């Protein structure tokens, strides 16, 4: 090919930019599987180059046939059925696929299977020796390492290798060894605690401290409130937990979706003839033959989808839309005998687009003459399907401003932040006659089932939804997905089960994340620094569909007579926004609590004092079932040593490293409401509680077990929890809004009480009898009282004024989440939320190029989710109390932990640098620019 004379450099036809943008581009969960799959789908395709390799897997010598193009993870998961190894990104970013090759951790997604010839591989399944867990697995269980568990196998393998190399590895060494393993649940502390415990060198990490709220000690209970390891932890640390993507059904086909490359385009025609003709293709659908309204995908007002909303929603979203309104919208889907064929078929589909102009920014989109994404314009209709902003009014702001001595105005913006749960979306649909079963990652099996029935026009009784394990939620999973509809339609057409898998990039673009906002505040205060008037004009970028509310939370945090908030949910051609851990709050709290912090400094007031003076208080705007905000702040300032860490004169440190402290607080709904549960007992004294939860990583299964055991007065070991399958579980509210413990937990208490009553009346069942107590609970709080959880976060940062780098040097999170059901998982929830909040504050963003409407960062590295190395120590303090509602006084945790974190970090950066950071994320370059 080359002569020695030819010294021309070999130009590669790629730039770093294309490479980076490509990273994570349309990568699929690994190809082919065959191993024990049914006859007719051979392991290797005869026409593709393949060979036999000999290798040792978990100590067993094996000889297998592999296609040369298979990756190791594909061979392991699909051919050898070792599904404990997961795929999170399929491109060397996340570590979910980590296995040991000759003892060294490697990404099995980035290795060819053929390369393994003669080598020895260890996967998570090989850690257990003759039925006995490895001490590391045991430590993972005891230290609550897995939340959702999707990253756990990878974390285990990296920790295992590190400890084999150095059995006394320090925490820092372990962190460095495990930094290739991302955890979106952000349970990083637990992974390191567990691994260092296995190293025999556990160092004390600040865990949780508990205080009784309001001076009234909380009476200790028997089971609830005791540190309890998760009931399903063993499945999660052995690779035995079955996630939706791990399921294989006989005769199953593989599906892939073709997605729009344009931010806005009309499909003039689609030619699928070549795809259909490709051998191995079993079904092809497009907007022409795959018509189904995806109800939950576009909702007037963006609240819970139901019959009422269905009737009034006029801006319908389909499984396939024409026009397509953002990059990543599905255009067609193919089901084929294997993934490779499905992919090839996609490439054969010819779509003729008429490219339309697009608009990316919500304020731009409302200007006269802006591109209209819907005929009605770009302001999204409200719950009554009227074209009005979300408005909240109290008093008369104009009057309030007239009565104010000083008035302040400012603008804050927040970014699009993707949920980025570790498990890429997948849906497996299976028809038996007119009965449909869907295996899909959902935190709301009941709502998903309702949605599927409604969208497909079939009776609810004909739909079964199953989700036993799920790799993270964080919002947007308490309904059906377009992937579920597409899989169901393909399965119907093909007459076989169909598994539709999304790549990491598709997951980022085809799904939903936190709506970006622009917030304008106007604040009036009295001479003594009391709020007189508070006004917010906000704009939320919803993408092209109104999936969720688009609200901006925060004004309700303050005690103020005159309030007006007008928030405009606006359509844009970015990917659709949706709920993400505290849907409207972290961004709103950041805006308003930055604003108020700024006002405090301008009034020369200590921000903590300003908060104390102006925060909501009991008997003000509302009366609460209990109120501990004051106590949260008092305790926090004390433990954090606020007076020592806070700089009276912001930015006054000499540098180059400047320190400063910030505060933010939270009041978050902990309302009671409707959910159901079933409790049963048999003659042997075995109890079972059936609940429609999935346990997205919060520990909900365990919590339900604890609550049932407490209410029944039996040990947890006597209670089986039945979950994750609509065929055996009653309606449940679904895992969103931090309400599972409160609502489903309350139903469990009532069901248990009913069962106890039966036992009291009839005695224990005999023979084959089973007593059943089935409850559809709908508790209320009398007297119009509001039930909230409260909290306050205190942060110290170190800002490097030479590089703009911000490091968290102290973090104290104080929370009143009512009675803590399980301290172990509660602390994990708080820290996970805080870490996500820090990520949102400092670096996370799904960025777009506004010139061409193309996403720039659709992947873990691009969005820059937190890693092992980003995590500071976090002190958690619970102000425990029992207000008499919820199960034993439990209140919300999961979302409340993230809400104040962003504002607290931003405020600390102000205190350290003297610069108010008004745009998220507060990237290093932004800090540096502000200091310039």
């Amino acid at each position, binding site marked *: 090919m080359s002569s*020695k004379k030819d010294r021309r450099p*070999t130009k590669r036809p790629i730039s770093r930019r294309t490479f980076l943008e490509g990273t994570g581009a349309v990568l699929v969960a690994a190809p082919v599987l065959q191993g024990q799959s049914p006859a007719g789908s051979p392991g290797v395709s005869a026409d593709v180059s393949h060979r036999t390799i000999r290798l040792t897997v978990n100590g067993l010598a094996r000889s297998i046939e592999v296609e040369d193009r298979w990756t190791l993870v594909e061979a392991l998961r699909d051919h050898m059925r070792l599904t404990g190894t997961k795929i999170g990104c399929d491109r060397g*970013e996340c570590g979910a696929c980590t296995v040991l090759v000759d003892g060294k951790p490697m*990404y099995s997604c*980035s290795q060819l299977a053929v390369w393994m010839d003669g080598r020895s591989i260890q996967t998570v399944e090989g850690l257990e020796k003759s039925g006995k867990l490895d001490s590391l697995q045991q430590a993972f269980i005891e230290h609550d390492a897995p939340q959702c568990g999707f990253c756990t196998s990878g974390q285990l393998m990296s920790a295992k290798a590190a400890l084999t190399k150095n059995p006394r590895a320090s925490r820092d060494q372990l962190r460095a060894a495990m930094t290739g393993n991302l955890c979106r649940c952000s349970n990083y502390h637990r992974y390191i605690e567990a691994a260092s415990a296995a190293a025999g060198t556990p160092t004390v990490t600040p865990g949780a401290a508990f205080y009784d709220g309001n001076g009234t000690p909380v009476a200790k209970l028997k089971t609830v409130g005791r540190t309890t390891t998760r009931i399903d932890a063993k499945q999660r640390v052995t690779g035995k937990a079955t996630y939706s993507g791990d399921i294989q059904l006989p005769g199953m086909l593989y599906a892939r979706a073709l997605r729009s490359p344009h931010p806005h385009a009309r499909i003039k025609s689609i030619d699928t003839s070549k795809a259909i003709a490709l051998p191995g293709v079993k079904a092809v659908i497009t907007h022409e033959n795959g018509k189904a309204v995806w109800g939950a995908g576009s909702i007037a007002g963006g609240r819970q989808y139901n019959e009422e909303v269905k009737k009034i929603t006029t801006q319908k979203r389909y499984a396939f839309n024409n026009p397509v309104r953002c990059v990543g919208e599905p255009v067609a889907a193919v089901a084929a005998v294997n993934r490779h064929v499905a992919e090839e078929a996609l490439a054969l589909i010819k779509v003729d687009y008429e490219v339309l102009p697009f608009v990316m920014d919500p304020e731009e989109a409302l200007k006269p003459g802006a591109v209209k994404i819907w005929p009605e314009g770009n302001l999204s209709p409200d719950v009554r399907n009227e074209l009005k902003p979300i408005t909240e009014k109290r008093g008369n702001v104009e009057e309030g401003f007239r009565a104010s001595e000083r008035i302040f105005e400012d603008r804050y913006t927040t970014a699009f932040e993707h949920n980025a749960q570790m498990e890429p979306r997948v849906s497996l649909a299976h028809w038996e006659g007119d009965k449909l079963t869907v295996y899909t990652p959902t935190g709301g099996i009941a709502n998903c089932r309702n949605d599927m029935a409604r969208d497909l026009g079939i009776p609810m009784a004909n739909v079964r939804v199953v989700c036993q394990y799920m790799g993270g939620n964080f919002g947007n999973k308490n309904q059906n997905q377009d992937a579920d509809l597409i899989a169901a339609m393909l399965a119907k057409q093909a007459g076989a089960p169909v598994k539709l898998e999304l790549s990491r990039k598709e997951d980022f673009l085809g799904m939903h994340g936190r709506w970006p906002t622009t917030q304008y505040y106007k604040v009036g205060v009295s001479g003594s620094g009391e709020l007189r008037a508070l006004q917010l004009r906000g704009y939320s970028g919803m993408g092209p569909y109104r999936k969720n509310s688009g609200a901006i939370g925060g004004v309700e945090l303050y005690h103020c007579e005159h309030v007006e908030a007008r928030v405009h949910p606006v359509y844009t051609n970015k990917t659709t926004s949706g709920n993400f851990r505290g849907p409207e709050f972290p961004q709103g709290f950041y805006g308003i609590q930055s604003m108020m912090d700024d006002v405090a400094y301008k009034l020369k007031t200590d921000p903590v004092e300003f908060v104390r003076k102006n925060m909501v208080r009991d008997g003000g705007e509302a009366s609460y079932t209990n109120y501990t905000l004051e106590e949260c702040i008092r305790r926090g300032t004390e433990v954090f040593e606020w007076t020592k860490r806070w700089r009276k004169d912001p930015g006054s440190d000499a540098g180059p490293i400047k320190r400063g402290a910030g505060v933010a607080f939270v009041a978050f709904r902990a309302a009671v409401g409707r959910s159901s549960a079933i409790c049963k007992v048999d003659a042997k004294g075995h109890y079972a509680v059936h609940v429609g939860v999935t346990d997205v990583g919060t520990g909900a299964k365990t919590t339900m077990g604890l609550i049932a055991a407490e209410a029944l007065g039996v040990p947890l070991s006597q209670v089986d929890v039945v979950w994750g399958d609509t065929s055996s579980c009653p309606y449940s509210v679904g895992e969103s809004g931090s309400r599972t413990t409160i609502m489903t937990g309350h139903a469990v208490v009532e069901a248990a009480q009913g069962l106890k009553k039966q036992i009291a009346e009839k005695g224990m069942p005999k023979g084959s009898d089973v007593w059943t107590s089935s409850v559809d609970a709908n508790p209320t709080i009398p007297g119009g009282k509001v039930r909230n959880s409260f909290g306050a976060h205190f942060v110290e940062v170190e800002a490097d004024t030479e590089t703009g780098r911000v490091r968290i040097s102290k973090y104290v999170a104080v929370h009143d989440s009512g009675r803590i059901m399980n301290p172990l998982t509660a602390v994990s929830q708080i820290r996970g939320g805080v870490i996500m909040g820090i990520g949102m504050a400092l670096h996370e963003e799904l960025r777009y190029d506004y010139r061409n409407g193309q996403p720039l960062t659709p992947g873990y590295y691009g969005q820059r989710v937190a890693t092992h190395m980003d995590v500071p120590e976090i002190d958690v303090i619970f102000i425990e109390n029992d207000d008499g509602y919820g199960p034993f006084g439990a209140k919300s945790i999961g979302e409340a932990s993230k809400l104040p974190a962003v504002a607290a970090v931003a405020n600390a950066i102000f205190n350290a640098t003297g610069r108010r950071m008004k745009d998220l994320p507060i990237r290093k370059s932004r800090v540096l620019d502000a200091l310039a």
Partner: protein
Amino acid sequence: MFPQTFDYTAPTTLDEAVKLLGGGAKALAGGMSLIPMMKLRLASPEHLVDLGRIKELNYIREESGALHIGATATHYAVESSPLVRTKCPLLAETAAAIGDVQVRNMGTLGGAVAHADPSADYPAALQALEAKIVLRGAGGDRTVSAAEFFVDAFTTVLNEGEMVREVIVPVDTSGVSYQKVPQPASGFAMVGIAARVKKAGGKVTEARIGVTGLTNSSFRATAAEKALEGTNGSAADIQKAAALVAQGSDANSDIHASADYRKHLAVVYTGRALIAAMGRAQ
């Protein structure tokens, strides 16, 4: 996406490999860059030659005052080799700063060098060490300096059919330091500075500064080196020298860092690397 189908050969001798490469095949080393590129169809080689089974490419040895490192030595092998750690600590320190454990266990020196990612770490050290890179083609070996080898982003002087056989670095006794600003998720260097300093009689007698991440290709910051040589190496001298590092450079700009921010970081990190190196210089 999946890789297009390809042929795969895993030769056990260098000659065989060179023959196959000469026939148009593509080298596969650690695969950390190549396999993802194949999945994205940024690369669709018809024939892959796996270098992983060629024993004569995998070594680290000392020969006449220099370290010779075979192309398939993994980052981990370089980072943990007692020989490299004691005789060329800058290279070991740089290897240890690459990506994460999984990447270092698979990725190879030869692959990283041949791939020439503008954000790769090794090139900074190889520039500062004035390393030599031995290439093997059908006509035999040729040796080029690091300064010649790296041409542009993902572009080197390698000809079609030619491969990286080994890298030669000097046994090095200067004070050294590698300082980088990692893209925090991937670890790739937004800016990476490798510094070497020798002192005698209280004066800096030799300074070498290798820069990666800043521009399309790694380079030696000769103006900054010159500014430092002959000085006492005081903090002020270092700042003066560091200020020259990005001068006139056509800095890269991407979603991670703008050109100006990269230049600023280069100056700050050159300062930090030089201070650390100075502290270690005899």
